[in-house]
Each structure stands twice: as structure tokens, then as C-alpha cells.
């Protein structure tokens, strides 16, 4: 049995990172040239890491499944990036950002990691500005900020509604510079299939060329997973179609523990599902809740008429509208954190007050803001979002309220890592959304971009040196070894097995079935009975999948069905682990809501006495029960309190 060692440095919180940096090893420039590092994924975390490591002199080999690193799903982040700059003179500080993140995460993240995140956050903004990221500015030429949910200061930097795009293009440009110089060798349209371990250390990967179908070997002195989150286990989510959990899942199967798999974030403001032809969900930025009021009808008969299309929302009088967030949470109102807003919408819809034909939508109404501020102000603030909404739904949100519903958005859980961002496999690192480390049970808005870039620009380039300093005598990794032979054989064998099932159902049939179970039983609201059912049902789908999936086309050509099959096969295992983790954690905290753990007035109830730990799951073999390890969370600086937004 492995013992979890988080390697959190001793000493006062504010000094941990600087003392740690001073004590870890550094590799000389002459030796960096001899070392290879593989980076899987080129979003904010992977892209910034690849560029920074190459600038330091390492030989970087970067992989992405898209046709260009610029397309990674970080690009879709809208709202902004947090940083403790205190440019607004509103008493923001590293400590305040640290505290907000710990509290927002419902006290299930490590103090030391989160403090470091807050500490490096100002450097991220400086770096991005230097790269030419066109952040929003004031007329005087200084950087502008906006406010985001769950905090009392204004610390969010933004580039219109395309902050993720601009930050990603920044690190993509830095990567391009290194690609031209030869520091980064880029492999587009390549999917990582396995991690190769030699003498217990990560020494390379097996990847499939998605154009030729060729399975290839790549050796390196260290491997970095930066492959994002696993929200697509739910089939419908705000993730891109290709987002998957396979790199993290392979890491898990090769010995990296999986941290808090049940912690996923459900975003309250997404465009509702339109029918069974839906392929993905579109997020409407959290910033809309600054000016939109959320409501459903007070009377059930009105809701029924809305569902049948017999009544227009504008014909419902104010007195007959239930502004349920303002009613339940008078002090935070429409700006309660994401998990709270999502559950409240679900509660109203479950009671029969949903407002669209499926009964699964609530209104987000700008009428009041337009009356108060004028249509021009609203246009200037949200014009691009309103346009996007209208293109998708054919409804003009200036004239009728938007319809919204919660959707899966982000995974706080992920590969377990120590303070150095190394997994439980030596030489294997995990950064960005792929790891579990900084957001606890719930992520605050505008913090995902911060974490991705913090890990890639300012944490990993230091901590990886501590490991690689002991590898300077290791020659270039030879891929003609029994370990690479075996891994490649296993990958090819699995692909052939999938391809040769020749059953009757397409991959999506299974993915949709899995997604439905996950949403119903491992989604916004969870209970013991449902979770146990989910575990059994997922097993049954998995068995059916391996007997009855059909993959057309050729192995050695472009084959999107084969790609999807591999990812869904992994989701069919990951989904079960999520259910297991949710079953074990009999408390409500952050995005994880257990119906057995609620206060008298129906709010989430955390159980600090029994659950102040990180769940780290260890793989024990196919169809074997995984082992749960617990990393106790120690809070030396903040006091644990029940979150209240009333």
C-alpha cells in the first residue's frame, strides 16, 4: 500500500513556496539540453508549460488531438482570470485571494497549494501583458477589472468575453516561437494512448497518429499530463466534443492515484437542452447574473401553460413571478455561487415549475436591468452573449427572458499530485484541470485560467527541475525496450479488440446511456441508493459496450468512431469511480450534494469531522475494487465555517 506524501513544505504559509524554491535542485543549462520532456495537451496549462520548459532549454515534445494547439478548450473560457493585483485599491491581497479560493472550494483544498496559486497570480497578468494579450483597459491606459461571483473585491482581468482565447493565443504564440527555434517539437492530431514506465519511472508515451492510424513510441525523461477535465463523462457538458479523461485515466491505471473524482462543477447558466438531438451544451457567462434576475412562475398553472407554449413569459405579472434566488438568499441574491444557484434551479424544475417544453429551464430576465439602465448599457455589457443566445435559440433576449439550466462544466477532481505537481508515479506530472489540487469541492469563477497558467508558467518549470536534476546521467530514452514493446502491443491490442467487436450500436449510443445515468444519479443531487444503482448500471453498459459496439472504417486512416470508442471505454470506468467516490463521501460539500447530508432548511451540510480529507483512489486491476487512500487536510490558517449565502 502506498503512503500519500503531499510534500508540503514546513514553515509559515506565506514562506512555504519561496523556501521550497530555494531548497529544490536546479539543472544546469548544459544538462537541460540533454533532457526530454513530454507534454500531453496544449491548453493553458500544457501550452504555458511547453513554452516555458523549452525556454529553459529542455527538449519538449508536445501533443494535442486537435489540428493545432490553439484549439484546446481553454479557448472557450469567457469571463476572465483572477489575480491578486489590488489595482483597484479595494484591499485585495494574496491572502484574500487565497482565503476566497479556500472558502469557495468549501474547505476541501490544500492551504499550501492554494496560497502558492494566489502568490504567483500577479506574475501571470504581467506575463500575459508582455506577450501582447489585449486585456480590457481603462481610458487612462491601465488594466480594467470586473467582479465575479463569491468574492467582495474586483480582481478579474478580462479580454471582452474571450479571455480564455486571448490567454491561450498568448501561450500558443510563446510555443510557436519555441517550435520555430526547435525547442518544442509539436505533434498535432496525435492522441496519447498509454504511459510507459521503466523501473517504476514514467519514461514515455504511446500515441496514435489520428491521420494515418499509426501507433508510435515517444521516450522522455519526464511526462506531463495537461489534458484537461473529464466533464464529457456526462455526454452533455460545456466541454468540447473531443475533451476526454483518457490521459488521466491511463495515468491512474499506471499507478497515479485519482483525487476526488466525484467533485465536478455544474454551471447554472447554460442554454437548456433542446431535444434528443443535442450534442453539447453552451455556457452563458456567469457575468450575466450581475444584471439578470432569475425566476419561474409562482403558479403551477402558469408553468404548465409555458411548457405547452400557450403563454408568453412577458404576460406573467411581477406579482406572479417567483424570484427564488432572491427569496431564498436575500443577501447574495442572484449572485450566489455556482453550486447553490444550480441546485436551486433544479429544485424548482423538479417541483414542476420549469418553463420550457421539457420542463427543465428557468428564466434569466434582463427586463429589469434594461428598465433601470437602458438598452444601450446592456448591449455594451453583454452584446456578444446576447447575439450568441439568439443565434442558438432564435429568441431575442432584449425582448423576452433567456431560458437557462445548469450543465456540467468543470472537474475539480483529477490526478492526485503532491506539492511539486508530481503524481504518485515518479516522473509523471499533472497540471491544470487534469490535476485535483487547487479548487477543492467547488471552483470560483475566473480561477481555472489562473490555475492553468500558474502551473505551466510558474510552478512546474521550477519543481520539475528537482526531479530532473537526478536524471542528468540518464541517456536519451531508448524506445526499443521490452517496456515500450509491451505498451505498444497492449495499445494495438485494445484498438484491434474494439475494432473487431463489430456489434450493432454506434459509440454514441453507449455514451448517451452512460451520460443519462451520470446526470440522474451522479449529478447535481446524489444519494446512497442512486449511487449504488449507478455503479451496477454502469457495469452493465460497460459489458454491453465491449460486446456490441460497432466501429466502421479503417484502423489505419482517419477514424473518429475509433477515437471516440477509446474515450468512451475509459469514461465507462471513470464514471464508476466517480460514483464510488460520491458514495464514500457522505457529506455535502461544494459541487457534491448528498441528500443524506442537509440542514433543516434544505441547504448543503458539510461534515468536517469525518470528511476533511482528499480521496485518492488507487487502481488495483481490472474489475477489482480500487483502494481508497485519505490525505488529511490540515488547516492551520483558516477557520472552517459552514458556507452561508442567506
Amino acid at each position: 500500500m502506498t503512503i500519500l506524501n503531499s510534500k508540503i513544505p514546513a514553515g509559515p504559509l506565506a514562506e512555504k513556496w519561496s523556501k521550497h524554491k530555494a531548497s529544490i535542485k536546479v539543472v544546469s543549462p548544459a544538462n537541460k539540453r540533454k533532457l526530454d520532456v513530454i507534454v500531453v495537451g496544449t491548453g493553458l496549462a500544457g501550452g504555458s508549460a511547453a513554452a516555458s520548459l523549452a525556454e529553459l532549454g529542455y527538449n519538449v515534445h508536445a501533443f494535442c488531438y486537435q489540428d493545432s494547439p490553439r484549439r484546446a478548450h481553454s479557448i472557450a473560457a469567457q469571463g476572465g482570470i483572477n489575480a491578486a493585483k489590488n489595482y483597484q485599491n479595494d484591499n485585495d491581497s494574496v491572502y484574500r485571494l487565497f482565503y476566497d479560493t479556500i472558502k469557495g472550494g468549501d474547505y476541501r483544498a490544500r492551504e499550501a497549494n492554494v496560497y502558492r496559486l494566489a502568490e504567483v497570480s500577479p506574475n501571470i497578468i504581467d506575463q500575459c501583458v508582455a506577450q501582447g494579450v489585449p486585456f480590457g483597459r481603462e481610458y487612462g491606459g491601465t488594466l480594467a477589472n470586473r467582479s465575479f461571483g463569491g468574492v467582495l473585491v474586483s480582481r478579474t482581468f478580462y479580454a471582452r468575453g474571450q479571455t480564455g482565447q486571448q490567454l491561450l493565443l498568448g501561450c500558443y504564440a510563446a510555443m510557436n516561437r519555441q517550435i520555430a527555434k526547435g525547442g518544442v517539437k509539436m505533434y498535432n492530431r496525435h492522441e496519447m494512448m498509454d504511459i510507459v514506465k521503466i523501473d517504476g519511472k514514467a519514461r514515455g508515451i504511446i500515441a496514435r497518429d489520428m491521420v494515418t492510424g499509426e501507433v508510435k513510441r515517444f521516450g522522455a525523461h519526464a511526462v506531463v499530463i495537461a489534458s484537461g477535465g473529464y466533464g464529457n463523462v456526462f455526454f452533455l457538458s460545456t466541454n468540447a466534443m473531443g475533451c476526454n479523461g483518457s490521459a488521466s485515466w491511463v495515468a491512474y491505471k499506471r499507478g497515479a492515484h485519482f483525487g476526488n473524482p466525484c467533485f465536478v462543477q455544474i454551471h447554472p447558466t447554460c442554454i437548456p437542452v433542446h431535444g434528443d438531438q443535442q450534442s453539447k451544451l453552451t455556457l452563458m457567462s456567469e457575468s450575466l447574473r450581475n444584471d439578470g434576475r432569475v425566476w419561474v412562475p409562482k403558479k403551477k398553472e402558469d408553468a404548465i401553460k409555458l411548457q405547452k407554449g400557450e403563454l408568453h413569459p412577458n404576460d406573467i405579472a411581477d406579482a406572479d413571478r417567483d424570484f427564488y434566488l432572491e427569496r431564498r438568499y436575500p443577501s447574495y441574491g442572484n449572485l450566489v455561487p455556482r453550486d447553490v444557484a444550480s441546485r436551486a434551479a433544479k429544485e424548482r424544475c423538479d417541483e414542476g415549475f420549469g418553463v420550457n417544453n421539457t420542463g427543465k429551464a428557468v428564466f434569466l430576465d434582463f427586463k429589469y436591468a434594461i428598465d433601470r439602465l437602458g438598452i444601450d448599457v446592456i448591449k455594451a455589457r453583454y452584446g456578444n452573449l446576447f447575439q450568441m443566445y439568439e443565434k442558438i435559440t432564435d429568441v431575442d433576449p432584449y425582448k423576452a427572458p433567456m431560458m437557462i439550466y445548469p450543465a456540467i462544466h468543470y472537474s475539480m477532481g483529477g490526478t492526485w499530485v503532491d506539492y511539486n505537481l508530481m503524481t504518485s508515479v515518479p516522473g509523471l506530472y499533472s497540471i491544470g484541470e487534469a490535476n485535483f489540487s487547487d479548487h477543492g469541492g467547488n471552483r470560483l469563477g475566473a480561477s481555472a485560467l489562473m490555475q492553468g497558467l500558474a502551473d505551466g508558467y510558474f510552478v512546474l518549470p521550477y519543481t520539475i527541475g528537482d526531479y530532473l536534476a537526478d536524471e542528468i546521467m540518464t541517456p536519451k530514452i531508448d524506445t526499443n525496450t521490452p517496456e515500450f514493446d509491451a505498451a505498444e502491443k497492449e495499445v494495438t491490442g485494445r484498438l484491434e479488440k474494439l475494432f473487431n467487436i463489430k456489434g450493432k450500436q454506434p459509440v454514441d449510443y453507449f455514451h448517451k446511456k452512460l451520460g443519462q445515468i451520470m446526470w440522474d444519479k451522479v449529478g447535481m443531487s446524489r444519494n446512497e441508493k442512486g449511487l449504488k444503482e449507478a455503479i451496477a448500471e454502469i457495469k452493465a453498459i460497460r459489458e454491453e459496450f465491449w460486446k456490441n459496439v460497432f466501429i466502421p472504417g479503417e484502423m489505419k486512416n482517419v477514424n473518429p468512431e475509433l477515437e471516440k470508442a477509446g474515450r468512451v471505454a475509459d469514461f465507462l470506468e471513470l464514471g464508476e469511480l466517480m460514483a464510488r467516490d460520491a458514495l464514500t463521501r457522505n457529506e455535502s460539500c461544494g459541487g457534491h450534494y448528498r441528500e443524506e447530508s442537509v440542514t433543516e432548511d434544505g441547504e448543503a451540510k458539510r461534515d468536517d469531522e469525518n470528511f476533511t480529507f482528499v480521496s485518492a483512489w488507487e487502481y488495483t486491476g481490472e474489475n477489482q475494487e480500487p483502494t481508497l487512500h485519505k490525505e488529511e487536510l490540515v488547516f492551520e490558517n483558516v477557520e472552517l465555517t459552514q458556507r452561508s449565502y442567506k
Partner: protein
Amino acid sequence: MADITLKKIYVKVWRQNSPKDKGRFETYEVENVSQGSSFLEMMDILNDNLVREGKDPIAFDHDCREGICGMCSLYINGKAHGPDTEITTCQLHMRKFSEGETITIEPWRAGSFPVIKDLMVDRTAFEEILQSGGFVSVNTGGVPDGNTIPIGYEDSEEAMDAAACIGCGACVATCKNSSAMLFVAAKVSHLAKLPQGQVEAKRRARNMVAKMDELGFGGCTNTGACEAECPKAISISNIARLNREYLCAKIAE
């Protein structure tokens, strides 16, 4: 507001098994498509049908399905990203099509974007152009505070207008000359409008234009089709700025 269902439509689509394959159009029937579905969801339905018939589904690029990653690249009824303005293919909805209609789908057609399979093309040429100079040469760390250099609101907004390019290639596919001028202009303009981009401005304009020419993209003859079809409404005035930047760079040589 409920969307109606199209009982039957016909999809005439380019099929090409590999770069060397000659390629041909094939027509498929698709039934019961909700007008509330996106165009790519219609393609999903078609592919689901094909898979169930044991046939090879149509390969096409797509990822975020919210109009920002730039991966999707379909030429629909003779227009890049189809019959709507300021959106990508993935944001196009079936409301734009009617009962019984035949929809023609082709890949981007440009010599510098060879077809990989069916509707997928290889846009590596764009990568190479950006690698030739589409960046500010700063390493991680050691940069000044973000507020050290004030940047005027208008300059910053104009830089952002140009930086909004998603690199989809619609401009090239639309241009009768297969010119990449709007794409190159967007990157050059974005950095030309910011103080951080000044140091390398000349080298950038020179190298990116040279690379563009080397990769076989055509010249610009000011027809403006690129601007009309750009899903992010990148203005053709950026091309004027690129020409100026390039001229200054050449004069300084």
C-alpha cells in the same frame, strides 16, 4: 417558439477517402431533423445513420461547438460556414434550411489546405506562418508590471478586434486567390497596435508575408470576400495596416 421538424432533407457531401483519392459527391437523405438542432447535430444524425448501415461516417473537423476553437470548416451551399453571418459552422442552426432542401457541403478548397479525408483539411500552413513571427519574443518571467506601460483604450480595443481571429481559414477558402492576407493581417495588426509588439514589428511583417508567399497562398486583390465571410468580422482595414507595416519594413531594409 417551438422549432418545427424537417421531415426530409438531402445532403450532398464531398467524400474523399484520402489525400490521394480523387473524391466525389454523394447524396444522402436525412429525416426528422429539428430546426432547433445545430448544423453539426444534423451531421451527427447522418453519421449515426451511416454507422448503423455499416458505412464509413463522414469525417469533418469540429471541437468546441460554440464558435471559438476554429476547428470546424465546412463550405455549405457555396459559402464558408454556411448561410448566416458572423458565425462558424458549429453555430449554424437548421432553421436556416427548409423542408426538402438539398444542402451541398464541401471542404475548404485551397491549394495550401490539402484535403485529409472527406471534409477535413490540413491547415498546417497557418501554423507555419505564425511560427515565422506571430509572437512577441519574451521568455516567461522577468517582465515588467502589467500597468507599467499604459495602453490607450482605443488601441487596446483595435488590437482586440484583430486578435479575435480564430484561425479557421474561412478567409482563404472564400478568396478567389486563396489568399491568407486577412489571417496574416489580423496577427500583424494585433501586435502592431500594442507597444509590446513594436520591437519586432518590421521583422514580423517581413517574415510572415514571406512565409505566406512561400506556402503558396495567393495575393490580395481587394475583393473583400474574406471580410464578408469571416465569422469574427475581422475588418479588411487590417490588410491595409499589414500593407503599411510591410512597406515600412521593406523600406527600412
